[in-house]
């Protein structure tokens, strides 16, 4: 077994665009769940909507920043539609509504109703919407190696998308950091614990929850954009499993922490890469073909998520006293 190759592959996940995409999405989910206590069980819906918004408007001829804006506006509208009927109700309702709403987005996307726009179940090929983003690259063409990492500067899965993606992640972290240590963030943390107490102090709980839902949703949509930039828009790759991966990332790093989502995303994808490669290498390939490895690693992630919530509910960075679960 080639350990060197395995480690390089795994290390590559640390800075991969996919890792950045999940970090962004998890930062958004952290605003929902970690800081406000909103149970959003359909985060992939926001991501897919962002991806569609960006890709479809680019294909229709929009310049990069307009397409970026479309992705954001789509997430805002989606958050409003989800929030208006549910945020006045108990928390569980939002969970149910978000699960189904995310599925609806995916099913609509893959249905043949809008094939012209979404490409139905085969999705949208990356080449059809990447050009405006690639054109923004200030990097010269060529290949750059930094340590073990060697990528083409402007390839669709190269340095430029990595730089842009992680810059976006850092910007999101900064914004969330500024917000949650502000009095606005204090109101959210109050709501997370006891809405009525916060109401009694004269704060419009509904408005705050809506703001949090919108902000987290927008970050999810941006995660979706980053996710599809180096690849393609595949509605079936952005379904329930993706939502659960984002949850795993968040809980692993630590909900209600600032850097938890980034750390969680890095550990998650490094671990996943190690698990996949070693399973591929170590398990007899006549029984465990690639078709079995994928669901098997999915099962491992599920078991891991359970163990995590049971044994370390605060995640890696969390403070046990400030848990977002009710644990003594």
């Amino acid at each position: 077994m080639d350990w060197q190759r395995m480690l390089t592959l795994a290390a590559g996940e640390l800075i991969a665009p996919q890792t950045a995409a999940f970090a962004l999405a998890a930062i958004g989910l952290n605003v929902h769940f970690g800081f406000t206590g909103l149970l959003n069980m359909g985060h992939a819906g926001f991501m897919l909507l962002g991806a569609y918004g960006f890709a479809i408007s680019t294909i229709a001829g929009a310049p990069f920043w307009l397409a970026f804006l479309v992705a954001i506006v789509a997430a805002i509208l989606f958050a409003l539609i989800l929030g208006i009927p549910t945020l006045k109700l108990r928390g569980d309702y939002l969970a149910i509504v978000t699960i189904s709403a995310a599925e609806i987005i995916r099913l609509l996307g893959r249905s043949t109703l809008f094939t012209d726009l979404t490409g139905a179940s085969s999705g949208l090929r990356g080449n059809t919407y990447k050009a405006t983003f690639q054109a923004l690259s200030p990097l010269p063409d060529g290949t750059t190696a930094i340590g073990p990492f060697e990528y083409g500067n402007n390839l669709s899965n190269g340095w430029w998308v990595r730089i842009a993606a992680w810059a976006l992640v850092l910007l999101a972290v900064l914004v969330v950091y500024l917000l949650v240590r502000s009095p606005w963030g204090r109101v959210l943390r109050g709501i997370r614990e006891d809405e009525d107490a916060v109401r009694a102090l004269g704060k419009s709980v509904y408005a705050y929850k809506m703001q949090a839902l919108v902000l987290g949703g927008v970050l999810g949509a941006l995660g979706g954009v980053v996710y599809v930039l180096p690849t393609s828009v595949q509605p079936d790759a952005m379904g329930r499993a993706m939502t659960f991966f984002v949850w795993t990332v968040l809980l692993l790093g630590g909900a209600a922490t600032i850097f938890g989502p980034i750390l969680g995303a890095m550990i998650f994808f490094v671990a996943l890469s190690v698990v996949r490669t070693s399973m591929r290498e170590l398990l007899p390939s006549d029984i465990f073909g690639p078709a079995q490895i994928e669901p098997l690693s999915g099962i491992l992630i599920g078991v891991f998520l359970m163990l995590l919530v049971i044994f370390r509910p605060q995640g890696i960075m969390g403070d046990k006293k400030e848990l977002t679960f009710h644990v003594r």
Partner: protein
Amino acid sequence: MSADPTAAPSGPGSPAMASPSTALVGLDPRPGVPKPDPILVVDDVERRFGGLTAVDVEHLEVQRGVITALIGPNGAGKTTLFNLVTGFDRPSSGSWTFDGRSMSNVNAAKTSRAGMVRTFQLTKALSRMTVLDNMRLGARDQPGENMLAALARPLWRRREQEITAKADELLVRFKLDHLRDEFAGSLSGGQRKLLEMARALMSDPVMVMLDEPMAGVNPALTQSLLGHVQALRDEGMTVLFVEHDMHMVRHISDWVVVMAEGRVVAEGPPEGVMADPAVIDAYLGAHHDTDLGDDALLADEVIEQLEHEAQVEEEEHHGKQS
């Protein structure tokens, strides 16, 4: 007690205090009596839970700038009435005004912003926030609570300093200053009660509504807090509180409203109302010819004794019925 010369003489040891309750002197002590300057006026408010009528108040006025106690046996509907007027519950029918404005269809947050701030019988200290953050959350006019302004610290830093200074001052007064940076979840039951009351005062409410504020608070501290509540009243705040502790009721209230089975059954100055047969009936059943205002009665043991008797009586009563 009150500066009311016509009121029944207060018992020995009861401190004589100046009070702004002179406005209520000579008022006819009957349920629903109009007050000279009411801040809260409740009309025909009814709240039913299935077949049970928890609150059925025909008319009730709460005088501005005085301390009004709301008493009554368990299940009388006191908390439900609080929930209704503060927008936490909806009445089956009825209306009320606060400070002249109709508040019947106003939600809890807006009611609070209008100046009617309440605490809860079952405390709602935000346990995963620090004591200081709990206090700060009670403050008003913090521009940093706006999402966009929150991003720019200079826009809210000064106000935050003012808020923190005020919080610290109140924490000292409520003997919680040494717990300032602890998570509120680590506080004892009595300390949580104190924290909740202090937090409610952060907004300088026009009227503060306290649901059993002193339950579980040690007597020495109760004394000093009662002084504080009186000071707040003297500065013009209106206080309405629910309390089972008759010492406290007698000690600081200017006016007492008695509820039983959802209705207001009696109103009046504390000394008078505790001698009212309707009140004694409500508390102790129909067969006692004692006066709740009697000082001897105020000894806890005696009250317990009486309550016990009442309970036994009631059980016997039920026993006969079934």
